[in-house]
């Protein structure tokens, strides 16, 4: 996709990622959100009001994450409300709170309007539990069986790390065996991922070999994670650029708005929905405006700039402390390599 049309502000984001809570019953070592940090989370009424605003702006989809979204007592109510307003919803869950009754209740929204992804970080108990915590493989496996048994379309999401890289093919087979799609997400150095970056980040060799796996498995989803190494043959499989501030933004549990979930730092706070309405923040925030016109100076002469648009600014920022450098894990432009 050419990004010229979306460089100028869209009337609203296409999707928003809404971290609905920081509360979580797990403590994964790569968690983007530093789950467990206490914030004054939006009340049910405030959430409904925000959904009303997003519906009015015709935001197409809300991706709910956390923390563990189902930990909030009002979460199903909120999903119902958003779906009732015609907004597509997607939930990222650790799966531990799913039961037969809950899974059955997802069907009411229809397969085109509701999506769910379950996090799994290893095809073996040993590997997954090393990342997500002891006993979680069994719990996640139970959730996967419930979703598969209910004939719901769902995705298994794996954050690719040096720990689970060797099980990528087994994860693919596991998803396939359970009628699910595998989504591979990129490790970002934010939240606990920042603390554990050095031991979890892929090696250069793994990063260079990963595109071969992707090219051989076109049904593996990557979302917007890996555009810095996405080959031309996968360009039409989804977004091929960082959508932060152009196509999407992130809503924190306390109603603060950021360009993306991986840049929830005070200096990137674009606004607070407790103080301003969402539309005003989206159209007038100087932070979001800066991201829309971010110049990746170090990539200007790179032949792949039109394909990757400079990669992930969040990784660049946390590793190199600059937004104008190349993606530090880029396998083409190595000037910013970590």
């Amino acid at each position, binding site marked *: 996709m050419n990004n010229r*049309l979306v460089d*100028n502000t*869209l*009337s609203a984001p296409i*999707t928003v990622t809404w971290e609905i809570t920081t509360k979580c019953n797990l403590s994964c070592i790569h968690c983007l959100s530093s789950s467990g940090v206490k914030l004054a989370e939006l009340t049910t009424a405030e959430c409904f009001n925000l959904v009303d605003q997003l519906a009015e702006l015709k935001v*197409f*989809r809300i991706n709910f994450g956390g923390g563990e979204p189902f930990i909030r007592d009002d979460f199903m109510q909120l999903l119902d409300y958003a779906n009732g307003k015609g907004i*597509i919803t997607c939930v990222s869950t650790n799966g531990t709170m799913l039961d037969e009754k809950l899974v059955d209740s997802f069907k009411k929204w229809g397969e085109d309007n509701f999506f769910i992804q379950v996090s799994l970080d290893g095809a073996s108990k040993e590997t997954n539990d090393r990342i997500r915590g002891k006993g979680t493989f069994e719990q996640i496996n139970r959730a996967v069986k419930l979703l598969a048994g209910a004939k719901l379309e769902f995705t298994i999401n794996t954050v690719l790390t040096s720990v689970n890289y060797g099980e990528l093919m087994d994860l693919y087979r596991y998803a396939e065996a359970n009628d699910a799609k595998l989504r591979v997400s990129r490790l970002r150095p934010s939240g606990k991922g920042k603390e554990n970056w050095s031991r979890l980040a892929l090696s250069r060799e793994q990063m260079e070999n990963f595109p071969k796996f992707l090219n051989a498995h076109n049904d593996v989803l990557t979302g917007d994670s890996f555009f810095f190494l996405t080959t031309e043959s996968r360009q039409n*499989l989804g977004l091929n650029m960082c959508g932060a501030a152009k196509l999407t933004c992130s809503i924190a549990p306390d109603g603060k708005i950021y360009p993306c979930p991986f840049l929830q730092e005070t200096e990137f706070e674009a606004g607070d929905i407790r103080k301003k309405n969402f539309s005003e923040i989206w159209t007038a925030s100087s932070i979001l405006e800066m991201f829309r016109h971010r110049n990746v100076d170090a990539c200007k002469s790179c032949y792949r700039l039109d394909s990757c648009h400079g990669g992930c600014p969040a990784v660049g920022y946390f590793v190199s402390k600059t937004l104008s450098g190349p993606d530090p894990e880029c396998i083409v432009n190595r000037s910013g390599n970590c």
Partner: protein
Amino acid sequence: MDSIIKLSPGVRVRKEAFGLIFYDAKKSDITLVRSAEVVLPGHLDGTYTWASLIKLQPAEKQKSVAQLLESLKQKGLVCEQPLS
């Protein structure tokens, strides 16, 4: 034979300054269309037939609108529903 034209399941559309933006939820993919003012989201809500939507346009634009609708159909963003 004429048929109703409407958004495919899981597809949403809205108007932007440059035209239309489609979102395909299953593919997590967007399509940007410079449609000026000729095709609007309301035209794709299932109230128009293929032929009636084209006839709505000025004569000089009917051919290009027909091509646009055909292209949206090829991309799976709109579909046809037989008249009951």
